[in-house]
């Protein structure tokens, strides 16, 4: 890139070195991060993988014991319930956050007078830790204490909302509380994206006679694709890590019908002193997540290169 004059060997040589160093600089700058991640993400995953092949109970023990933990894992009813729940919860959570977030963003974009206040109201749940808000949600969703009782007192005698105490439906209450917490952030992402769209394209389409829904469908939403990407990454991250949400709201209950892999792993690895078993469940969780996220990341990042 820089013109190298080789007329005087001394000066050219010095510039060579500088050029070399400058090429190296980005790599040097990235190095601490790369090393940190290598150890604290990939190194620890490998350690967990190793442990999953041992018989560790209270504390780590390093004698290998084959696949015994995985065999036990696959015959554990609670594990299958937790895995199914992650798919249900993750899917619904991401879906509703994205749809609701997009909808709210579109509505808020219509030059609403109270935009500032509404936006703050939608965003604040993200600021609170679920340990803080969990107790409130638990009461609200409890049929005897919360919404159902309130509606009945208001005269709707047949109103039932007992999902929280129903084994079949308890996981959906986790979705309700989770969507409440994260939709605001997604809405902010979409709102920012909407505001960044170039007006002239829309004006041109309107001149051509396109109706409003069509404009949204064909122009606006497709141009929000990068926002969808960020939103899905952030929401998946939240869904997988959902721990406080389950612990505070349902404790995995009734029974273990609303358990998730993160709480499963914690209970077995730590509370029940079955460290190797917990490690096996963590590895399974990791594989399943990778199977979905890696293709998605690959397709999105490749696409970016060509934009």
């Amino acid at each position, binding site marked *: 890139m820089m013109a190298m004059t080789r007329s005087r060997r001394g000066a050219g040589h010095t510039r060579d070195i500088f050029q070399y160093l400058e090429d190296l600089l980005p790599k040097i700058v990235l190095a601490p991060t790369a090393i940190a991640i290598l150890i604290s993400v990939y190194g620890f995953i490998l350690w967990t993988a190793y442990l999953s092949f041992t018989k560790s109970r209270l504390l780590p023990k390093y004698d290998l014991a084959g696949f015994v933990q995985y065999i036990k894992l696959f015959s554990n009813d609670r594990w299958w319930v937790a895995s199914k729940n992650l798919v249900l919860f993750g899917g619904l959570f991401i879906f509703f956050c994205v749809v609701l977030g997009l909808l709210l963003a579109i509505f808020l974009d219509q030059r609403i007078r109270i935009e500032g206040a509404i936006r703050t109201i939608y965003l604040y749940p993200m600021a609170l830790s679920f340990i803080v808000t969990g107790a409130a949600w638990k009461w609200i969703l409890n049929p005897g204490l919360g919404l159902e009782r309130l509606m009945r007192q208001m005269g709707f005698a047949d109103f039932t909302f007992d999902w929280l105490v129903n084994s079949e439906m308890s996981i959906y209450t986790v979705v309700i509380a989770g969507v409440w917490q994260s939709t605001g952030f997604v809405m902010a992402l979409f709102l920012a994206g909407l505001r960044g769209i170039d007006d002239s394209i829309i004006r041109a389409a309107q001149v051509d006679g396109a109706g409003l829904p069509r404009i949204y469908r064909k122009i606006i939403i497709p141009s929000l694709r990068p926002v969808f990407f960020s939103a899905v990454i952030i929401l998946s991250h939240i869904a997988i890590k959902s721990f406080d949400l389950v612990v505070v709201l349902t404790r995995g209950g009734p*029974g273990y019908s609303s358990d998730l892999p993160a709480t499963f792993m914690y209970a077995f690895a730590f*509370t029940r002193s079955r460290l190797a078993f917990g490690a096996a469940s963590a590895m399974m969780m990791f594989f399943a997540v990778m199977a979905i996220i890696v293709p998605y990341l690959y397709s999105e990042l490749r696409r970016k290169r060509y934009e």
Partner: protein
Amino acid sequence: MKRITCRWMIVAVLVAGMFSYNAFAGEVEVLHWWTSGGEAKSVGVLKDLLEKEGHTWQDMAVAGGGGGNAMTVLKSRAVAGKPPTAAQVKGPQIQQWGDEGVLTNLDDVARAGNWDTLLPGVVADIMKYEGHYVAVPVNVHKINWMWVNPDVFRKAGAMIPTTWAQFEEEAAKIKKAGFIPVAWGGQNWQEATVFESIVLGVGGAAFYEQALVQADPQALNSPTMVKCFETLRMVLGFIDKDAPGRDWNLATAMVIQGKAAMQFMGDWAKGEFTAAGKRPGVDYVAMPVPETSGGYLFNVDSFIMFDVKDTEAQKAQQAMARLIMEPRFQEVFNVNKGSIPCRLGMSRMAFDAPAHMSFDSFVASAEAGSLLPSMAHEMAVYPAIRGAIFDVVTNFCNSTVANDRAAKTLASEVQSAM
């Protein structure tokens, strides 16, 4: 010359200063989960006693999960090589920690304090690892209590039951009169608490020992166990539909307010009644769970002591162990917490009526061989096995699993967890 003298004088002053500081002041870092209200005050008592002797108490309180979070922290610290001086660990987990070789030996303190004579054999055994004391017990909770609102019984024209057959009849009367017979908290430890009381009552002390202490698969998948599940299913027919997830104290509130007739809960429920201004024997009655009047399911909280290198810390550790077993702490702590002292032969004056019943029952059952460790409260089996039992019981309570299927699953899950 002058400068050297000056320097030496400074050194001398510093050294003198070091010695004049209490040479026997050690620091104990204590990990526990008694973090609020009455429980915290009780721990505060121990801290004060320890500090009066010149030692310092570094508090490491971690609540949540009934000790679950605390155990995570403890394990992380053990892995990091920096365990605390003392930690609140109970039951067979003490032996598991002993297996790791990180615990210290309290035999000297035990000998000096006569622990072997002052503690019932069952309790002392839990505190030992390979015959040596590694932990010190703090209190004794009785689990198999039934808390009753006599007023509700009166209104329903029912009698307080002492057998499960009677229970079925009386509960039906209460339900008919429009009350909730059993105040139930749908959390796995509460369900397990009722389950183990039923096992004790229906199966007897020997069966309980075989099934829930030895975890013998023969006992777990036996006709007696099927009968236990049958009884549990019967009891579940008398709870309200909002029970899942309910905290234990909210269930007690139902009894206090006269909405429900009975609650099966350990002796800490007494604290709720007292806080609401209710009087024992008048506003509420404490009965043993049906068919368990001779039996005593106990929960003993205890502190394990880790091996520390610092001699000052060791002295502080031993002082803490000694103080815990002394009458003064035992009395104040247990009066505050609603439990009874584990130290035999103590004065009963400061304790209330239900505690007196507990005292008597404790001694009697120790002699009769029906003083048994509570499985639900981590006293009987390793955490892995307890967890497996919990899963089966909670699933049973929250679904329509058949009784014999439940017993079969119980045996297989416990096997898998071993």
